[in-house]
């Protein structure tokens, strides 16, 4: 009986701890870092001219010491075939229209050009470093119970005033992300679906047309 009480106490304490942002961040990161995965991200994004567009991307991530992420654009139609590859050292941007690959050092690259840093969805720890997160509660979603997390950027140049994240509790990973401006208007709203573990290799994520023109930006 005492043993059962002790286990119940530990579980209760464990649940209590899981309610904190650092613990949720740790759980999400541990889950995303477990093995390579891919997912489809769809919703609306804001373009630099202020207009909003329906968008769909394929996100592929190889976690680990040398994390690698590839974002392939499916929509809008004007960007289909474009992709980004983000590593610790470099950011690649491939432009389908001109068959060019622009390579920039990661430290100087602004990957937030689309109003959201897509690579952050695969690096939850980095997201929590750039945005001050707060647990706003729990709710139910079609995928199951979720944590609702709100955040404000630590860096004013990130291009949004507030963020709302839904994180799946049973398989800790982001389900959706909503960015709002200072007038509380939605600037970007993205959902992560078709999440699956995949046997990805760095060669697969770095694949590109052999004849692409390479442009290096200092």
């Amino acid at each position, binding site marked *: 009986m005492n043993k059962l009480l002790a286990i119940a106490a530990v579980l209760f304490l464990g649940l209590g701890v899981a309610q904190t942002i650092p613990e949720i961040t740790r759980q999400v990161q541990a889950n995303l870092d477990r093995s390579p995965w891919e997912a489809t991200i769809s919703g609306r994004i804001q*373009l*630099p001219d202020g207009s909003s567009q329906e968008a769909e991307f394929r996100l592929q991530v190889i976690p680990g010491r040398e994390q690698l992420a590839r*974002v392939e*654009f499916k929509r*809008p*139609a*004007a*960007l*289909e*075939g*474009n*992709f*980004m590859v983000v590593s610790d050292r470099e950011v690649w*941007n*491939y*432009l389908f*229209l*001109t068959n*060019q690959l*622009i390579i*920039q050092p990661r430290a100087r*690259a*602004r*990957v*937030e*050009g*689309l109003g959201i840093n897509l690579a952050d969805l695969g690096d939850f720890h980095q997201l929590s470093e750039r945005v001050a997160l707060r647990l706003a509660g729990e709710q139910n979603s079609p995928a199951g119970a979720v944590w609702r997390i709100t955040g404000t950027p630590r860096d004013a140049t990130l291009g949004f005033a507030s963020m709302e994240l839904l994180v799946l509790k049973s398989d800790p990973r982001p389900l959706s992300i909503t960015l709002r401006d200072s007038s509380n208007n939605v600037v970007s709203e993205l959902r992560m679906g078709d999440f699956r573990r995949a046997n990805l290799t760095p*060669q697969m994520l*770095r*694949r590109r*047309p*052999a*004849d692409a023109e*390479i*442009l*290096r*930006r*200092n």
Partner: protein
Amino acid sequence: MFRVERVKHRYQRSLRLVMVILGLQLSAFGLGQSLSFGLYGRLSPDHLTPTLEATLPLGTFDLHTRFQQGAMGVGLGSTMGFAALGQVSYGVLASLGFAGWGLQGSASGTFGPLAASIEALYSNTLRSNLWVGDQAEGGLRLGLAGRYRLAPRQTLGLQLGFSRDLLGTPRGSGELTYALRQSQTYTFGLGVDDSRLYGLLGWRGEIDAAGTMLTTTLRAGQLNRLEAALTAPLDPEQFNNLKLHLTLAYPWAASLGVEAHGFRADAAYDGGFSLWLRYRLTPGGNE
């Protein structure tokens, strides 16, 4: 004669000074982006010259310098990226040599479904006198090119050109293309070059599982030219490719280029034979 010798001497001294500064810059940075050594030879007219090209990062710019016997060029270029949405590149280059001088500027950009580029060149001598890699034409040349994505896999292209050679003779050109991109790309087009009409057919695609790309473009009619480029990945991580370029034209002209591991050989025939051998050093890998 004495004055010419003195000017020549002063020029050579300036050239040597620039070379020394360049050398210091290279050793100071220790990471000059690239340095190419070359040797160019040509029969009729008989001509042999070493060539040197260097590209150095200078803040957000790249400094380009090039030297050959009797001429040098200095230029600046830069690229701005907008993540997956597009990019803008621009550059200027000034050349000076015993034969004359030249200036050129170019800008290109891609944003969403639209890509455009513009270039303007002027020289008071044949540009091949200022740099062996340039065409044997002088005077003014203006070029405008645009591409528009009609649909995700369909692209419309337009190229317009105007030139006025050293004798003041004007020349115009225009080319309209339609490209259908699936796993392979098919291009169809029509063009006019100095009142010569031609049709255009193009094909681009991967020809093996390793990702070897072949691009061919045939222009036929009153102007006839076949261009083919083959790029085979040797070491994808290091951007090492084997590149082959072939151009055949009628009236007879031809060029053949081979490039791998920083080595490049270009042979050409345009009434006279030429051969240009180059080796490029690129700290951090070739591309």
